[in-house]
């Protein structure tokens, strides 16, 4: 028991130290800035708004809205003739891709320019589905819209399936996170994405 308590004490000190440094210093901001992929919107064959989530009441999650709005803006700027809207389908009647497509049509995007991809669960699934949707059109240049932390893994995963990738990112939290809870959340996002990248490399997805 004594040895166990000594180990717990060391782990407790380390945890509290890490918590203090993360919450009360700009360390998470510095790490996030290093992890960030630069926003590089360029003309492409298609703009892809990656899926995030749809809530049980049928509304899009904040991330989903942000990605959709950025992708629609880029389409309106004329960066690509196609808008691919990926989406999760967590239950009957809940289809993120279809909700986004309906919103895009209301905002003036022609139905013929919209492709929806449903039932994709992971970034890898989305890369495979986008490549399959574009192959018959002979298209392979994509401009993928996702959030800042996800962007590097997205680029590597989409390149792995043979696509030429540019990434447009949403959010700049490295500079915006200035309160302790926002810094903790930022640190968590950095840690989570670092683990996800390691997993994707290990699995051969990126």
């Amino acid at each position, binding site marked *: 028991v004594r040895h166990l308590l000594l180990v717990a004490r060391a782990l407790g000190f380390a945890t509290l130290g890490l918590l203090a440094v993360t919450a009360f210093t700009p360390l998470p901001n510095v790490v996030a800035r290093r992890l960030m992929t630069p926003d590089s919107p360029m003309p492409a064959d298609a703009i892809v708004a990656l899926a995030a989530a749809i809530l049980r009441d049928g509304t899009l999650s904040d991330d989903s809205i942000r990605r959709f709005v950025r992708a629609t803006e880029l389409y309106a700027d004329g960066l690509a003739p196609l808008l691919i809207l990926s989406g999760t389908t967590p239950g009957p009647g809940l289809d993120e891709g279809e909700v986004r497509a309906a919103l895009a049509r209301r905002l003036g995007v022609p139905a013929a320019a919209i492709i929806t991809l449903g039932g994709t669960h992971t970034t890898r699934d989305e890369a495979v589905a986008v490549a399959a949707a574009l192959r018959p059109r002979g298209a392979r240049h994509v401009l993928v819209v996702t959030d800042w932390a996800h962007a590097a893994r997205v680029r590597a995963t989409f390149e792995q399936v043979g696509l030429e990738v540019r990434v447009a990112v949403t959010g700049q939290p490295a500079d915006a996170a200035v*309160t302790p809870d926002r810094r903790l959340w930022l640190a968590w996002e950095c840690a989570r994405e670092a683990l996800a990248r390691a997993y994707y490399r290990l699995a051969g997805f990126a």
Partner: protein
Amino acid sequence: MTTALIFILVGLTSSAAWAVGTRGLRRSPSGLCLALVCLIEGVGFAAAFLGLNLLLGFVIVRTLPALTERFVSVYVLEDSMLVIVSAFQGFAFRWWLDRD
């Protein structure tokens, strides 16, 4: 501003607790040191439980589709309740070591 306010609030309530503990309840300062060590050990156990919960959760989430053909996203592990429950586990385990 937020950081300063947090430190001021914690400083004020801790000073009040110190006054109540030492004068009203006649507790010794050394007892507080032991309590703080106990707190640190509890945090250590909580961190260990959180790590184990996340690891086990990841294995379950990745294995589930193969067994049930139902996809569960790894993002379910981001629920902040997991941190709270892990803290409960850690502190309960620490106190258990004192009781037996």
